[in-house]
């Protein structure tokens, strides 16, 4: 099973099925007969919600757009419509729900931006086996400490001592995570300022966003490992 390219767009704008007017892909309704349009191969959640391709989004604005479009697309309101319109309503509502979910959280929002900008994360990289270079030091130290804690646990050391060691081991990782959160926010803001910047500068920002996300996923996994060890202490 492989990932599916999301940015396929029709070369020619699709036509309205009911009046054959050519309708731009980002229009939800036919400008001529105002019928709901079938979804086609849409791939840009920002454009779908009528938002600029920016990473800082006012959550209330996003909620408002989601509600407004839900009121326009939802199958509840197409109960007596033609089968084609009912299908279009179903597809468009499903897609809207996906778009809203993806853009609501900052991390999935960045992932979507990377996808439509041609730098998708790819499923296999999410839990990356290879240690990101920026984390080598922390990972090395943590693994060593975890080994020692495991040995202590097996030799019957009391839970309080183990918990204290684990808490200490956790600190640098958490610090790293906080650092990454800040870096992600900074890179996001930088992207938003670069709307008119040259392509290579924009590309560099996207690449640093991508690197930060990969590291972030790695850190999340490390914290998961610590949690599992903590659980083993009972």
């Amino acid at each position: 099973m492989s990932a599916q390219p999301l940015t396929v767009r029709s070369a020619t704008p699709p036509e309205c099925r009911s009046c054959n007017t050519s309708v731009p892909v980002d229009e939800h309704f036919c400008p001529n007969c105002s019928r709901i349009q079938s979804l086609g191969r849409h791939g840009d959640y920002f454009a779908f919600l009528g938002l600029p391709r920016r990473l800082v989004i006012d959550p209330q604005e996003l909620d408002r757009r989601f509600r407004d479009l839900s009121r326009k697309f939802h199958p509840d309101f197409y109960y007596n419509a033609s089968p084609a319109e009912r299908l279009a309503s179903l597809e468009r509502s499903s897609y809207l729900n996906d778009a809203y979910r993806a853009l609501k959280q900052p991390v999935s929002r960045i992932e979507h931006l990377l996808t439509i900008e041609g730098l998708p994360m790819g499923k296999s990289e999410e839990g990356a086996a290879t240690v990101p270079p920026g984390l080598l030091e922390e990972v090395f130290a943590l693994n060593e400490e975890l080994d020692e804690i495991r040995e202590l646990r097996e030799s019957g050391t009391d839970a309080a001592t183990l918990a204290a060691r684990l808490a200490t081991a956790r600190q640098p990782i958490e610090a790293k995570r906080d650092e990454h959160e800040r870096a992600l926010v900074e890179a996001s803001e930088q992207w938003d300022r670069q709307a008119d910047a040259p392509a290579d500068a924009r590309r560099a920002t996207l690449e640093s966003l991508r690197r930060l996300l990969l590291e972030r996923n790695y850190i999340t996994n490390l914290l998961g490992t610590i949690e599992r060890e903590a659980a083993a202490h009972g």
Partner: protein
Amino acid sequence: MGKVVGIDLGTTNSLVAYATERGPVVIRDASGDALVPSVVSVEASGTVFVGREAQRRLLTDPSRTVYSVKRFMGRGVDDVQGEAHLLPFRVGGEPGGVVRIGVGDREFAPPEISAFVLRELKRRAEEHFREQGEFDFEVDRAVITVPAYFNDAQRTATRDAGRLAGLEVLRIINEPTAASLAYGLDQKNRGTIAVYDLGGGTFDISILKVEDGVFQVLSTNGDTHLGGDDIDRLLTELVLAELGTAGHGLPAETVQAIRKAAIQAKIDLSTGDETVLSVDRSPALPDGFTRRITRQEFERLIRPLVDRTLTPVRQALDDAGLEPREVDEVVLVGGSTRVPLVRRLVEELFGRTPHAGLNPDEVVAVGAAVQADILISGRREMLLLDVTPLSLGIETMGGVTTKIILRNSTIPASGREMFTTGVDGQTAVDVHVLQGERELATDCRSLARFRLRGIPPMPAGLPRIEVRFQIDANGILSVSAKELRTDIEQTIDVKPSYGLTDAEVERMLIDSFEHAEADFEARLLIDARNEAESIVHATEKSLRRPDFAQLAGHEVPPSEVASIEKAVAALKAAIAGTDREVIHGATHALNDATRHLAEVMMNNSVREALAGRSVNDV
């Protein structure tokens, strides 16, 4: 077009409501009762009783009477092993297949039993509309509610039940969300609401955000096997245990009498601090049974059950990203929320007094009526955005679940997954669809298996088959597939793991029409017998009257008396049979034979009545 209604198809009780311009109306019977017990009793003759009458039959004819069938909707035989032992009716079916309910020599799928309840509600609603003087009183469409935590198979089973009852199911909606719609009507609601819904057999928690008339569910959780039924069972088991050896092997009638007493004690303890649980004497229980029970003891008994509702509540809050105190309003739904312990624990968890302004038994049906009205009117002031309660996935290499649509995704929702072949020239791929949160396929609910066929022969790994999973606004899944290289749509035959195929539903529909005719015939037969019996009774009474002796001999010749006696005997014989025409014929014959006698007796009594009175007094 006929009428549209909203139906709450409950584990214990069901009811029907509809929308009017002045707001939603719950349909009640002559005595003002809206609740129709979800109990179905099937007589040996084939006559079906639903509701109160069926509930009465639980005490007299338990083995032919089915209750709590909602617990078996869309479930497999293996799921329900543990709970069949206290039930008076047979629960069976093929291993690995759907549950079958056995009544006498007939077997029913759970949706068929639910369809009887739905038909009764439909009949009630039609009677109501007829009484209202509506020209077009037929009810042909409905919104039916289900627990939010119902899986795909359980929802589909409910939709099948609607079809079997002759209803077009406009929409399946979730009970807690329906309740929130009903609450949303009379308030300018805005904010975060938690709906805690503990019914007869199921528990749901839904967290919603309400803004601008959009009711957006943020998360939902629950337990489809937790409700008032379980409280009743605990109390029943308590009594059986205290009866000791006498509690073993009691006939089903007695177990039902104990259950009835347990339910009454539970209800009493919602208001009183103590009550007496008392079971009447019966042959199997010659001393009867009485036992004082305090609320404290009752609460100790049911505490573990109520505690079980709190884990889903915390999970739902967590999924919504909220702390209990961030919830603006807590709404209680379902009859079991009348139990004080439930109220207390919910209040403790959220740190606020729960809202219970509307009747917890009726609020769900009211919400269903509101949603039905939205669907047919196209009015957009209110919109319900619900979620799918469980993740949808497929089984991949090594028996692992790969999730495609995550739980708490707003519906409608779609997902896609790419498949390819493993062998050169392979033209088919098997897909196993699952629902649940667990990592291993065997720990998730098997929804369906299907085979992608018609893949153009290509080297292994080359075909790119995109399978699209669509969950509609009912929370029900459909699947489509396409080979992307050739753009060929694939044929999919979905075999539901715990559901009925379309062909089975069709067959049941035909069966139900046939049985509807049989049921109708059975009713006519009963009517004919009743009429015949009352004539026999009246005739025999006349022959025993003191004045008959005076009349016999001169006004009524012995030959006439003999022919009347002959006609009575013939009619009695006809009543013992099952031929309605024969009963009718014999009834007419007796009527004819007694006509002269009736006239004579009538004149005689008129004479007596008038004797000694002047014409002016008459």
